[in-house]
């Protein structure tokens, strides 16, 4: 009992050290916050198309329309967003390697600027919808900025959220296995 009292501070110190070391780990991102929307059905939204005559994107497309019963990725982006440029080529990779449509939602963007962005960098999206006042992103998906990517399963339930730009590694290690699993 006496000895225990002597060791106790050491145990507490060791526990605190472990917590602090874990906190300093480069793998830990203090900005990563689980979205409460994961596991929830996608919210009702309707994003107008980029140009007349093109289809926009709405929740009904996922639930009953063109993408019914498919796993899809929804990528929020903007022409003014620099990390989105860096991420851009990876969207094509995600789409082709996972075999899923990537739907783009342009967050707080002007149509002309958006068109210029897609003309310049290419268009990896199966469809592009516009969210000019940002409400679809904020109210529908709880995004904190762009880029953000959501993986939606066959039933229209949000399964993953990636805040910030995608990376090669993230696609290979996290998204492809998840999507494969969801496609079963």
């Amino acid at each position, binding site marked *: 009992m006496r000895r225990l009292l002597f060791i106790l501070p050491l145990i507490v110190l060791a526990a605190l050290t472990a917590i602090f070391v874990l906190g300093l780990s480069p793998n830990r991102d203090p900005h990563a916050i689980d979205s409460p929307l994961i596991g929830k059905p996608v919210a009702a939204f309707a994003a107008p198309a980029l140009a007349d005559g093109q289809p926009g994107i709405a929740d009904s497309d996922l639930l009953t329309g063109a993408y019914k019963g498919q796993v899809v990725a929804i990528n929020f982006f903007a022409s003014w967003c620099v990390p989105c440029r860096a991420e851009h080529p990876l969207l094509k990779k995600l789409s082709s390697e996972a075999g899923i449509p990537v739907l783009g939602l342009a967050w707080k963007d002007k149509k002309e600027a958006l068109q210029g962005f897609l003309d310049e960098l290419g268009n990896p999206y199966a469809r592009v919808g516009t969210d000019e006042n*940002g409400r679809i992103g904020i*109210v529908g998906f709880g995004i*904190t900025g762009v880029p953000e990517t959501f993986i939606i399963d066959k039933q229209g339930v949000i399964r993953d959220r990636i805040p910030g730009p995608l990376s090669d590694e993230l696609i290979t290690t996290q998204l492809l296995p998840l999507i494969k699993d969801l496609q079963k």
Partner: protein
Amino acid sequence: MIRQIRHGLIAGLVAGAILAGFAPASFAVRPDEMLSDPALEARAEAISRDIRCVVCQSQSIEESDADIAHDLRVLIREQLKAGATDDQVRAFLVARYGDFVLLKPPFEAKTALIWIGPFLLLLGAAAGIYVFYRRVGRRETAPLNAAEQARLDSFLQAHDDHPDDRSQGGAA
């Protein structure tokens, strides 16, 4: 002299910084966001003060100039105008951004340690101090043996002979 002036200047700056820390935080609310109804506006500001800016993380949306903080402030005002209660507005934000968005986390199993942790620590420390002093009080000292007693007496004797101590009413 110059050094003194410099010290004075530094002290002044430090004092100013401390005072600034106590001054009410500057608010980022833009005039065009404000509601014309002062009661609603006051409620909106009260809610905003407890909502964390999701990109700046250590500021409330009331204090933040971030774009998304502005969007959330406008959203809160729209909901209040539409007749939502304060709790409904908070629930709306929590549903999208999680408990993280609240600067005061709710009391639940996951957060219980945050709330009661400091009190547990305090209790633990108090218990530790209590046990320590009780033990010290109970500890009995062994009486001096003959040799020790003789040595002590000789010290006291020497002490008694010291004139300074005597003049001050030295003990023993």
